[in-house]
């Protein structure tokens, strides 16, 4: 996703300063900045212009893509989702206040586990303040992506009547924004996705390919304005 954003914002030998990103990782009981080499600014974000300097790359041979290596692997221990959301809420609020006409902040929560610092039933309540953050372009969006290494049947951008595999999936579903029509259109037309009515920004039991798909959708809004992930 980062590599794609960088390429999309490249104008000759320069990068248009259109996007700012935040990377926060679960580590034990804490939530820490996860893009080690690229420090966060006072707003808790980093500009894409800085990320474009990244000279460490990994080559995804399967897809013949050279991916900038920005976020180090540091996940361990618990999944303090409540802490993470609360931290991100303040960053998103601050961003929306300072950029009232920008594309609204987009928050993507990627996890392979259940929250360790709150009840999963409370997630929707914890997340709800984010839904109230808005710019003139709409409300902030929360994407939840649950990744699973096994071959459980994945759920991708489910609509209200779609079946969900378990209670936890229902909790995460409830804590995800409804996908705006503009993004649904992009998803259908540019990414060839099957997206129903009122689909939620949510994937469950996703594999890496689905994760990439959802990330590319999450980052395709706004037509080059400020975003946050």
């Amino acid at each position, binding site marked *: 996703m980062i*590599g*794609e954003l*960088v*390429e*999309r*914002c*490249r*104008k*000759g*030998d*320069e990068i*248009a300063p*259109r996007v700012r990103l935040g990377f926060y990782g679960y580590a034990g009981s804490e939530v820490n900045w996860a893009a080690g080499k690229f420090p966060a600014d006072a707003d808790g974000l980093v500009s894409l212009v800085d990320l474009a300097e990244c000279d460490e790359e990994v080559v995804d041979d*399967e*897809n*013949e*893509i*050279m*991916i900038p290596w920005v976020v180090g692997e540091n996940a361990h221990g618990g999944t303090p989702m409540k802490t993470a959301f609360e931290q991100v809420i303040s960053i998103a609020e601050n961003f929306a206040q300072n*950029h009232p*006409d*920008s594309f609204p902040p987009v928050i993507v929560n990627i996890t392979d586990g259940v929250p360790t610092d709150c009840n999963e039933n409370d997630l929707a309540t914890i997340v709800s303040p984010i839904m109230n953050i808005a710019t*003139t372009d709409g409300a902030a969006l929360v994407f939840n992506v649950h990744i699973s290494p096994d071959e459980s049947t994945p759920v991708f951008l489910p609509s209200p009547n779609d079946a969900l595999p378990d209670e936890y999936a229902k909790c995460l579903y409830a804590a995800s924004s409804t996908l705006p029509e*503009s993004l649904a*259109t*992009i998803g259908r*037309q*540019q*990414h*060839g996705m099957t997206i129903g009515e009122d689909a939620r920004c949510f994937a469950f039991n996703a594999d890496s390919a689905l994760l990439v798909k959802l990330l*590319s959708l999450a980052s*395709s809004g706004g*037509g*080059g*304005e400020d975003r946050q992930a």
Partner: protein
Amino acid sequence: MPSAIQIISKLRLLKLKIPSIGMNPHNYNVTPSGDNPKRPKSWAGNFAVVVPSVRSDGEQKALRFFLAKTPSHITQVTSFINNNPHHSLVKCKMFRNTLTMKNGETIDMMEMDFIEGNTLDDLIINLLSKGAASVLIDLAESIRSIVNELVTAGFYHGDLSHSNIMVAEHAPGGSLQSRIRLIDYDSVLVKGVQAPPNTKEVGHPNYQHPSRKTSRFTLVEDVYFSALVIYVSLIAISVNPKLWESYHSKGDNLIFQNQRGDLRDITSPVWADLEKIRSKFPSETGKALDCLKKAIKYPTLEGSNFLSEIEEWFSLGTHIDPSPIPIPDPGPVDPVDPVPPHPESSPSPQTRSVKTKPTPSPKPGPKNSPTPSPSPQKRKKQHSSKPTIELSSKDITSPEAKEKTRKSAEENPLKSQRGIFQKLKEKILPSKADISIVTEGGGIVEEESEVIRPKIKESITQPDAKPKKRKVSKRNKKRTTIPVPFSKLKDKKIVIDGTNILHEAGQKNKFYLQPLLALVEQLESGKVESINIVFDASTPHKFSNKEDKDKFNELVSNQKERYTLSPKSTEADAIILNIAYKNNALIISNDFYQDYEDSLPEEFQWFSKHHITSSQAMDIWTLNTTSNNEFLE
């Protein structure tokens, strides 16, 4: 759909060398980035990645790779440009399937002339640094003229912005106007497009009226609105260069910015500053500012008074005479006429490489501006000294004529012009009425006489003059398309560009067999004599599912007389042209085979007069052709 990083990665894996593919005899060395010699220098937007390159014959070319499905109307756009050359439009050629991704997906490439020069914003920076802000007035006027000419010719750019207007460093003639180039044709709409192009482009947000939506495609109002934003910005910066420092964000805008709400209402700070300098706008250019102000207040431009208001001043100079223009029939016209090597020498509506100096004359208008710089009104007349059509210079240069000009512009048909633009719109997007020109008996009405042509200046400079008969060169004649009823194909031999049809009906380059079979069925019910369908060698690998693929392979092996798969490394296009020529068959394809004009001249000639295009909706196919096709007679 490929991503930008996939394309960039692919070019890096190719070590920045694009080999000669298919019928493209050239290979390319992609220009490396200034920071990293291993990666290409690139520009990207939401719809394409563009890289500069050097072609094997030494020519510099810009290569455009489409991120989404190649816009369905792009061939029509490139054909339009080739058939209606204008110095501001860049020649371009489509090459299919140039890059092949790891997953088998292929990417089309558009080769364009490389423009060495500055984008509009960079040029402004240069000019301001040299203290040459006054040049911006000439620049604004030049852009205004070009936009008007293109609109009149039936070319709606749809994404005019600081980054899509370039000023070439070197150009014949050397005048500023002759150096201006418009690039990025993704949201272009051209006359003759039958079906609305499936483009979701809505242009750069800092140049659009709030009512511009993805749900519709480019309107003439959109083009004029963006042009007005640019025009007003340039004049304003020339009056007060400090506006540039205050309101320009690098690479993002001129002085208006959507995010600040500058194009939503007129209360933002930039408007307060513009108000302060309104009286300093030279001559009548302030009217453009007023017009923009008004336009922003309209909830939607479509159907508003915007068009009539912009016509009152901004678009003046390219008014079209509302009376029908008799056009002598120059005989059959090749719909894919060869492109002249020098667009400058063509009879397109742009022949202003030599400018006459404005004759000093007393300004009859009430605003006798003390500004020594040429006023737009003067420039307008000055432009008319080199119009498209034959017009003796004495008509324009005499003070009397100028007096007449102004009078006619004042008294004359500004209101009625609204109808002309409406008409022009209808020409670009054929309405149902256009489609109904197929008569009951299946006969087709010649549409050529309805082609709207710029009647530049004549109505202004010679209000009393009767419409002149004008010479219309073969090349200048526009291609119009008309529907072909299937019954018209009775007893004809048909060759179908199978891969093209699958592509047309497929999704995201994933082919489905059913639409093709539906076309065959429709043709059979029209009692055609024979159908021959030719496919690219790679076609079997592009089906969306195994079932279709198997069925396809079965057809190709069991019905050889109808289904032909090209051998590997042989272009199906050449086979199609050859079969059609040898068998006197009609060709169904949305490709224009421009690349074979030189290599297969006779076959190409045949093709150009026996070409049918197709479009599909809900498994029902509609066929079209250009009006000069021989088989219609």
